[in-house]
């Protein structure tokens, strides 16, 4: 058959995949290995590939070296969750409007939303800094939440819109004919049907919100207690030396929440995110 491979071809494919995946996974593997080694062993040169003194000590000590570590992880999750909830409040009605309704400047306004994707926070940092200062939001959670929401709204609208477009129109038409108002139809007919899509988009927004915290945190927040993990991790870099093993352990513990969510939902997420790539 067409899909049958010879032995040699199979070996080639697996070998190439091994190289590809090594590149992708090497940093994680090395982070994990470093987290298992005692510090004095890490600082042994030349590099040793294997050692007999692996331990989980770093996973205990890291909470002592950086006492606020637990707080940083909480902050990361708290900021990402708040960003997700607020973003969805803005995204759901807008995505519905773009999927279903016809109104003046529909395409232009959608274009403006997507144009926002072109700018990262870095370009707008200066005035954003001043806006947040004027509003008195610097050095608060809001300083990291508000810009986060702004940069995720366009992606959220885009993803949810393509999902809503797939829900059959007939159901709404039927509700209209029965005399239901537009708001009622949106709340009682469309949203319940869109629950799977809402979950996928929320998780995508959450992952994005979890990932983008570093820049906003180092620029808009000087309060240590409010730092998210990606910024807090740098506290393992001391004046004298870097406790690499504990830093790696903390980094791995910090990505665990998103990795778990992702693993559970990866099938739906990938399908939802790449939907635009597949021809209808």
């Amino acid at each position, binding site marked *: 058959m067409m899909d049958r491979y010879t032995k040699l071809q199979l070996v080639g494919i697996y070998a190439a995949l091994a190289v590809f995946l090594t590149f992708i996974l090497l940093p994680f593997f090395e982070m994990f290995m470093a987290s298992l080694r005692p510090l004095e062993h890490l600082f042994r*040169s030349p590099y040793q590939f294997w050692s007999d003194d692996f331990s989980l000590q770093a996973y205990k000590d890291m909470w002592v070296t950086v006492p606020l570590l637990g707080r940083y992880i909480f902050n990361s999750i708290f900021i990402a969750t708040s960003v997700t909830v607020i973003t969805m409040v803005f995204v759901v009605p807008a995505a519905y409007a773009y999927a279903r309704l016809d109104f003046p400047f529909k395409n232009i306004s959608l274009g403006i939303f997507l144009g926002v994707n072109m700018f990262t926070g870095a370009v707008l940092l200066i005035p954003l800094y001043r806006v947040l200062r004027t509003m008195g939001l610097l050095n608060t959670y809001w300083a990291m939440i508000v810009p986060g*929401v702004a940069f995720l709204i366009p992606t959220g609208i885009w993803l949810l819109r393509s999902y809503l477009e797939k829900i059959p129109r007939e159901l709404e038409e039927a509700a209209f004919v029965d005399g239901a108002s537009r708001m009622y139809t949106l709340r009682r007919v469309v949203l319940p049907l869109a629950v799977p899509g809402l979950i996928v988009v929320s998780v995508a927004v959450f992952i994005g919100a979890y990932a983008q915290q570093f820049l906003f945190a180092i620029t808009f927040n000087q309060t240590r207690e409010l730092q998210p993990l990606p910024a807090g991790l740098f506290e393992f870099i001391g004046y004298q030396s870097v406790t690499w093993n504990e830093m790696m352990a903390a980094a791995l513990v910090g990505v665990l929440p998103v990795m778990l969510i992702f693993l559970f939902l990866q099938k739906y997420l990938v399908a939802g995110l790449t939907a635009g790539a597949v021809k209808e």
Partner: protein
Amino acid sequence: MAELSAQASQPAANTRKRAMSENLFGWMLVAPAMIFIAVIVAWPLAETIRLSFMDAGLGGEEFIGLENYQDLADSRKFHQTVIRTFYWMFLSVGIKLIMGLIGATLLNAAIPGRALFRVLVMPPWVIPVAIGCIGWLWLYNGYFGVLSGVMMKLGITDGPFEFLAYKSSAFYSAVVTDVWVGTPMVTLFFLAAMQGVSRDLYEAAWVDGAGRWYRFRRITIPQIMPVIVSMALLSAIFTFNSFEIIWILTEGGPRSATTTLIIDTYKVAIGNYKFGEGAARAVVIVVLLAVFSLIYLFFLNKINKRYGAK
């Protein structure tokens, strides 16, 4: 059927009234998001443009016309930064696309275990970039990192090699990390596009005796071309704007070897509180990105006409 009878019985006036309410309702739903974006993105953008004509810092503002732009136009260092940014972008995006094509082709092959391999590609896409970069910081460490260790074992270098300490090795190390961050997304989009290509095409070619390479070149590539073009430009925008990777690995050094426009802007504006000079740089970035998006639309239209329209 209900739809049909409802339409038939509706007088023209009623339809018009309904259209008006749809306009209003549409804007009612879009307005909150629009206003939020206006305050947090559009207004700061306008402020950036205004500030770029000012001598602005912590002390105050003074209108100086085009002086900030004139300084940039005269600065050899800035020209080098622009060229470096484009080199960084083209190199990194080029590698990402090639890696993405290879990766997607491998993951699309009908072999046992592919479901697992597809999941294993994704982690760099999911985790915060800043945390991935900390891993790379460790890999690039000369004394204790695995890369330098392997090179020493193989006899490529005599002693420890600090990847981030030399101008060109720091630059290419940053490119490798950027490729690592960007490749999973490109791969998965290409894979999704490849899965959307109709099997009939391949089977017809196969019956005619076309080999794998021929089918890849003459069927796969043309069929997924629209996705390749959009990913190329999307990655270009991401790479151009890439901040965290360079900032965490090198902060733009050594001796500006990894300073791209974004890093330069951040250093001038946030690091040195030269808001006016920083704003002028930000405007240059926005203009360059706007030109990009125009090219994007232009190419996308062309490609879609050639491949998409059936």
